[in-house]
Every structure is written in C-alpha cells, then in structure tokens.
C-alpha cells in the first residue's frame, strides 16, 4: 500500500470531507425513511389481500428488500458523475492532467474515503434493521450471508463508481450538462432496482436487465440479505460483480481515451 502514498492521502482527505457535513448526512438518513414508509404501507395493503407471494417475494422478503434497497441506494449513489462532468466542462480537469497521478485513481480513492464513514454508519443501521425485522418476519439470515453482503456492498460501490465514471465521459461531447446527469442518475437507480425490485418490470425487461451491470449494484446486494438467494446464487452474483467491474473498467478506459481527443480544456 505504501507504494501509493498519494492515493492514501486523498483517501484520508475524503474521510475528513465526509465528516464535515454530518448534519446533512443525518437529514439524508431521515429523508430515506419516508419512501420506505410509503412502500411499507403499499406492500402491507397489497399482501393484506390474501395471496402470500407477489412478484416472487413473500411479505417479509419484500419489506426487507424495500428497507435494504433504500439504504443501499443511499450508500452506492455517488454523485461522482456530476463532479467529474463539471470538471470536464469547466476545465478543472487541466490541473489534474499535469499532476503525477491518475485522475481515475484520485477520484476513486476520494470517493472511497468519503464513503467510509457513511458506509460504517449505514451498515450499523442496516444490521439493526435486519435483526429487528428478521426476527419479526421469521427470516433467518446466516452469518455467511452477512459476510457476503458486506463483500457485495463493497463491490457494488466500486461497480457503481465505474458506471458513473463511464457515463460522465459523455460530458466530453455534450455542450450542456446540468440536467443530463440528473436524468441518467435517476434512470440508473430505477434500472438497478432502487425503487422497486426489478421483477416488477415484468419478465422481459428483468431478463434483459440480467445482461446489464445495473442490477448488481442495488438489486443483488439487497437480495443477498433478505434471504431470497441461495448460496450458489450469491457466489454467482459476486462473480458477476467482479466480471462487470472488469468490463466496466475497460469500457471506461476506452470511452475516456476517445473522449480526451475531444477535450478542449476550456476555462481552467
């Protein structure tokens, strides 16, 4: 690790930056609570009508999915696409280009540092929730699932960063970016299963989504923890996450290489 002191430095800076806005973080925790509440009442009404399975989920699994997915969404959404895109647009990228470090590495380690504090707090919140609801709906979660979940979350954070990093390269071509990344960010969350589990979209769409990386960022980790997936599916999912991290890494490198030819370095 000590070969990369500069990245450790930005990692630490990221940690410090995240501690700066604790109140904002607390607020964002509270606002995560409302969608959970709304969906909780929707599902309670849905399952109250007799049938014990909808979209392939039991009531307990669905409630746990709703809660976990909302928290996972908060953890993995990075807003990095916004930051990177505006770096490209207003020329702030210039100053990174002359530094003896890779922009990709700097951003990745800043993000990891920024998320460390959130990640820990959120995991603690999550485990409390899981123990409470797991007991209430008689869902037994083996310890190995918890371990796999932490691994899946870490991988999902990296995968999500790579997706954002790739999408943000569009800023090389677009002349106006302010709204664009709000739209892509939202679409990515929908496709990742952050609003509802992807089974809700119907068979065709959800099987299409199996060929894309998105569902491995929110949908997959959430289903690891609610006990819906068996061990072999979890292992397969983790491998798919690693596979997609590899693919997205290559895609992002490629897109950025092409994009750089368009880079004007305006402003700076």
């Amino acid at each position: 690790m000590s070969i990369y002191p500069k990245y450790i430095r930005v990692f630490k800076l990221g940690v410090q930056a995240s501690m700066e806005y604790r109140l904002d973080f607390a607020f964002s925790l509270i606002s995560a609570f409302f969608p959970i509440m709304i969906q909780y009442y929707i599902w309670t009404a849905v399952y109250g009508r007799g049938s014990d399975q909808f979209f392939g989920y039991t009531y307990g699994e669905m409630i746990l999915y709703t809660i976990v997915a909302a928290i996972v969404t908060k953890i993995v959404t990075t807003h990095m696409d916004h930051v990177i895109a505006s770096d490209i647009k207003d020329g702030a990228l210039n100053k990174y280009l002359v530094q003896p470090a890779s922009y990709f590495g700097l951003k990745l380690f800043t993000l990891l540092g920024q998320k460390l504090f959130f990640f820990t707090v959120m995991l603690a919140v999550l485990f409390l929730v899981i123990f409470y609801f797991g007991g209430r709906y008689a869902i037994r979660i083996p310890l190995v699932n918890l371990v796999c979940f932490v691994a899946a979350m870490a991988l999902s954070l990296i995968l999500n960063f790579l997706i954002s990093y790739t999408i943000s390269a569009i800023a090389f071509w677009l002349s106006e970016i302010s709204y664009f990344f709000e739209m892509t960010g939202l679409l990515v969350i929908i496709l990742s299963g952050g609003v509802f589990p992807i089974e809700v979209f119907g068979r065709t769409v959800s099987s299409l989504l199996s060929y894309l990386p998105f569902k491995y960022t929110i949908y997959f980790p959430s289903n690891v923890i609610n006990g819906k997936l068996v061990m072999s599916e979890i292992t397969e999912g983790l491998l798919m996450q690693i596979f997609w991290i590899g693919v997205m890494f290559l895609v992002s490198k490629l897109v950025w290489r092409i994009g750089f030819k368009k880079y004007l370095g305006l402003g700076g």
Partner: protein
Amino acid sequence: MKTRLGTLKTYGIIYLQFIKNCFIAQMEYRTNFILGIAVEIAYLLSKLLYVVVVYKSDLHIGDIPPDGILMFVGTYTMMTGLYSGLFFTNFVRISDYVRTGELDLLMVKPISLQFMVSLRYIDLGMPIPNLAAGITMVSIGWSALGITVTAYHLFLFALYLLSALVITYCLMIIPAILSFWFVNTGGLAGIFYAIWDANNMPMPIYPRLIQRIGVYVLPFLVITNFAPLSVMERLDGGLMLWGALVPILLLVCVRLIWRKAIKNYSSASG
C-alpha cells in the same frame, strides 16, 4: 376596494411579464429546455412504477379500486408538475439570494419582495410531461369509476386543486425561508420533498395517526387527496370546509414568518 383591485391588476400584469421573460430566456437555451423535460420524464417513469405495482397486484385501498388509486396518482403528478413549473426554481434560489446578499437589489424594487422573490421564475418546459400524464391519469380514473361529469364536480375538483396549489406554495417555501436563519437548508428541503412523495398514494393507506398529522398539522395530505375524494363524494362537510380554509390560514402564517425572516436579513457579502 377599488385600489385593491387595481393593485391586483398591476400584479397580474407583472406576472404576465414574468412569464414572457422566462419564455424568451428559455427559448434562447433550447437544449436545456428539452433536457429539463427529459429529466422530468425520468422522474415520471419512477412514479409510474407505482401505478404498475398497483395494477399488477390489483391493489384495493379500503374500497378504492386501482382505477380510483389512478386518480390520486394523477392528481399527485399534476401537482408535482405545477410545483416544478411555478415554484421550484424560485424557492431554490432564495437561499442563494440570502447567502450572496443579492436580496439587497431585489429589496429596493417598488413591488412586494415576497412576490418578486417567490414567483419571478416560471419554468415552462418541466411541467409539460407531468401535467400531460397527470391529466390523462385523472381522466382515465374518472371515467373508469363512472363519475358523472357535472359542473358541480368540475368546480369541486378545480377548487381543491387551487387550494392545493396555495398549500404547496406555503409548505414548500418554508425550508427556503428558514435559510434566513440557517445557511444550509438543503437537507431540510430534501425531507420536505420526501414527505411530498407520500402523496403518491391515497391517504387511507396510512394509519389514522399519520392521516391526522397530514391533514391537520402539516397539511401535506390535503394537497392531492381532497380533489379526488371530493368528486368521489367521500369528503364530509367538516373536511370540505377545512380543505377550503387551510390555504388561507397557511398564507397568513407564511406571510408572518416571511416578515420575521426579513428582519433577520443581514445582507452578507453584498
């Protein structure tokens, strides 16, 4: 009385001027205009997922069938459109005015400062998808439920929409006004948006306590529930009266808070 009407007319003319200015400005940046619409479509898609869930699971809330729920979702979508078009841009800017001291310049204009600050920018593009989708959903739900289209029903629906618009203004401006005291109110505004989304579903889905709070304390639930409930004839006399009174009460409150806030303005870095 005559001068009152005269003032109202003047403000009407100024508001039309605002619309004209915004239209000209937005036509200058057409890509932005179209992207703004695209963003709203993305939000709309995420809300329509709820409709998919409602129909696929054949959700009944109390004795409200899926078509009835569609009317509520439609009203919610319409109100979201109106909010994003008429108020959102203004409310976001208020904390900037305060932080940068830009308010100084607005203060010296010879019209009401609150009017100027809170209604000056109208976004003509963003509300289009929501309004179109919302009106469609309400119409589908309305006819599927077999509610007769009478002048009385239309009047009721329009009345409660108007009341909802005023309530929306009063509630959503609160985080912005608080920025006179606290610099960063983004987190609080986030909470208000989240509560706003509770309107996505008819209120009978929530427990009685939440309904009471949502109707009488922080009247968010009045915004999208009263219009459809009134034409379904599920509102009793007391609630009907309350729905008409709330906007007036809130307007008075907001006006008082606004005055207090202005006294607190420190004209920083102006």
